[in-house]
């Protein structure tokens, strides 16, 4: 005998449940039924003037980046401001930055899925798309960093004409395996989750060409019990694989630094420090994307303030882990008795690079402490502003890791400075253009929220009368709760 959601007789004097207040039985009280899920979310696919304007700006930024890269290929890498001792600069900083951004997607979609964290349901599709596009962006930077970018395939592990293979003990070879695996698995996870939603688009599409495209992309999915049974198992196993992968990828990226005998880099704290930082920066970018989207498309009843509140707590937690990692670095340098290490950290905070270190500390450790306040956690304007500071702070974290170490190594004659040129800044801007161009194209072709998974948390229609808390949906006649909508302007 199947277990059904138990009907409950309605009581006339029972207080009316207000919308936007999640209950055990109803996480999205503002969403009436499955049809509304499809209507509201598929409605976001219609291109608008604002969308065209945003796409235009993104493409313009990309063109600026491409022009700068063309100039750099012609002039050589010196155009990018590299000179001894600092031979890693904006490109490696931005590579690590985008790989980090790419972490939150899989964290939200896989790790929070395994933990059954309900708040992920409405934000994970955006976060997954963000992951795929961020890793695509990150993958450009090792190529941009090459003097001869057309030889990029030399990075791939295969033997040369003398049958010598790349050294498998090198962190750069590990990087290739880690990043390519992460890109492939994230893209697969993203696509598999999309299949049932593309089937919805296929069934609702009236344009025959688009219908055919959706039919091909949905692989003939028809929502049968057999398909769902295998789909849910496969999704669970993919999540189980993706979870340690998230932790491993940024650990491997951290080995690029930690394996080198350079002051400030050669530390065992690097893998957890990088992973926490990556998750922190990724959540920052999720806020940067999701808050304007829910406002622009009026999706406040899907991405509720409760969801943002929960994500903000995760942000606060990872910020504190990152802060602890910063302090650990200082403590290890202090206790090491190694003068070079101690001088390096002094130089980082009070010397040549103090300005960048303080931007990092204020953006990543001080400002996020505001999230201890529930009022600020539920204020979308503040969350958006904070997310911009987090993005800035996390870029500067990578700046602080890369540049001060290289410019302040063991011998004073090795010491030097570094100033990015207009080529660096243009390519950095171009990377944002590239990322947002893909994201904007995605959001007009495919649903930005997971239709099937949202339907899973909507109480299904029942023949028998059931819990009145699940029946009250008339938004016009009800007042929204002030706490639950604070900041929801």
């Amino acid at each position: 005998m199947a277990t059904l959601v138990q009907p409950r007789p309605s009581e006339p004097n029972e207080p009316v449940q207000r919308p936007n207040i999640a209950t055990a039985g109803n996480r999205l009280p503002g969403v009436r039924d499955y049809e509304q899920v499809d209507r509201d979310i598929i409605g976001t696919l219609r291109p608008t003037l604002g969308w065209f304007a945003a796409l235009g700006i993104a493409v313009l930024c990309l063109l600026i980046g491409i022009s700068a890269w063309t100039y750099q290929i012609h002039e050589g890498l010196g155009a990018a401001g590299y000179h001894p001792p600092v031979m890693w600069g904006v490109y490696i900083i931005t590579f690590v930055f985008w790989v980090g951004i790419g972490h939150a997607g899989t964290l939200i979609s896989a790790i929070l899925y395994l933990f059954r964290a309900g708040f992920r349901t409405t934000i994970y599709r955006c976060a997954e798309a963000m992951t795929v596009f961020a890793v695509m962006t990150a993958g450009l930077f090792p190529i941009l960093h090459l003097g001869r970018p057309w030889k990029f395939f030399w990075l791939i592990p295969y033997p040369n004409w003398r049958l010598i293979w790349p050294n498998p003990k090198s962190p750069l070879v590990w990087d290739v395996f880690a990043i390519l695996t992460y890109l492939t698995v994230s893209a697969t996870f993203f696509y598999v989750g999309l299949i049932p939603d593309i089937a919805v688009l296929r069934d609702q599409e009236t344009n025959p060409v688009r219908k055919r495209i959706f039919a091909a992309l949905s692989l003939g999915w028809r929502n049968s019990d057999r398909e769902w049974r295998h789909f849910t198992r496969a999704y669970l196993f993919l999540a189980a694989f993706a979870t340690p992968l998230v932790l491993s990828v940024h650990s491997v990226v951290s080995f690029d630094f930690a394996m080198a005998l350079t002051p400030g880099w050669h530390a065992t704290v690097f893998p957890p420090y990088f992973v926490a930082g990556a998750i922190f920066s990724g959540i920052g970018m999720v806020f940067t994307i999701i808050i304007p989207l829910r406002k622009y498309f009026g999706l406040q009843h899907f991405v509720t303030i409760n969801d943002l509140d929960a994500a903000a707590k995760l942000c606060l937690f990872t910020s504190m882990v990152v802060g602890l990692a910063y302090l650990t670095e200082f403590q290890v340098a202090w206790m090491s008795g190694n003068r070079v290490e101690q001088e390096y950290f002094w130089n980082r905070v009070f010397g040549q690079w103090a300005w960048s270190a303080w931007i990092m500390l204020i953006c990543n450790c001080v400002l996020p402490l505001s999230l201890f306040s529930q009022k600020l956690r539920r204020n979308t304007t503040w969350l958006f502003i904070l997310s911009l500071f987090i993005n800035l702070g996390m870029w500067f974290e990578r700046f602080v890791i890369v540049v001060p170490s290289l410019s302040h190594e063991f011998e004073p004659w090795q010491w030097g400075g570094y100033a990015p040129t207009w080529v660096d800044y243009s390519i950095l801007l171009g990377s944002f253009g590239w990322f947002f161009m893909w994201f904007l194209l995605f959001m007009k072709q495919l649903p930005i929220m997971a239709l099937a998974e949202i339907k899973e948390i909507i109480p299904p229609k029942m023949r028998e009368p059931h819990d009145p808390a699940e029946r009250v949906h008339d938004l016009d006649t009800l007042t929204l709760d002030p706490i639950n909508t604070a900041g929801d302007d």
Partner: protein
Amino acid sequence: MQGVIGAFAELDSAVHAIEDLRKQNFGDITVYTPTPRHELEEAMQPPKSPVRRFTLVGGLLGVTFGYWIPIWISDYWPLVVGGKPVASWVPYTIIGFELMVLIGSLSTVFGMFAVSRIPRLTLTVGYDGRFSHGDYGIWVPAGPDRMAAAADLLRKHGALEVRNER
């Protein structure tokens, strides 16, 4: 294939119809649902999904391949440093792990496709676009002698629409 398709707006009606159909020995019924529901799964009592076997085999193949490649490379062009073993399993664990995840994940997806019988070029007889939107569908394969009985049973449980399909 011949049979009857019934569309239901309510989950409980669909569940009761499935239970009744199973009691009446209507064999290999298929349920269409816009989202996975445990109520339907309990009513259908399906066997365990074999996807996990693909995951296990893919993962084991991946980790084996991931260790084998760097060990083979090291042995092929040995660089002996300080008399240490040429193959160093600790750093090779990274490659082993990454390939375990890569091949394990891809084989999981391949397994899901294989056992779900997708990609499919044409939609099955009886499928209706409303089943991805909001309604539940029950497809009952039945010969001409049992079609009427199946249709009556679906209507009795509140089907919005019942159609004979072939």
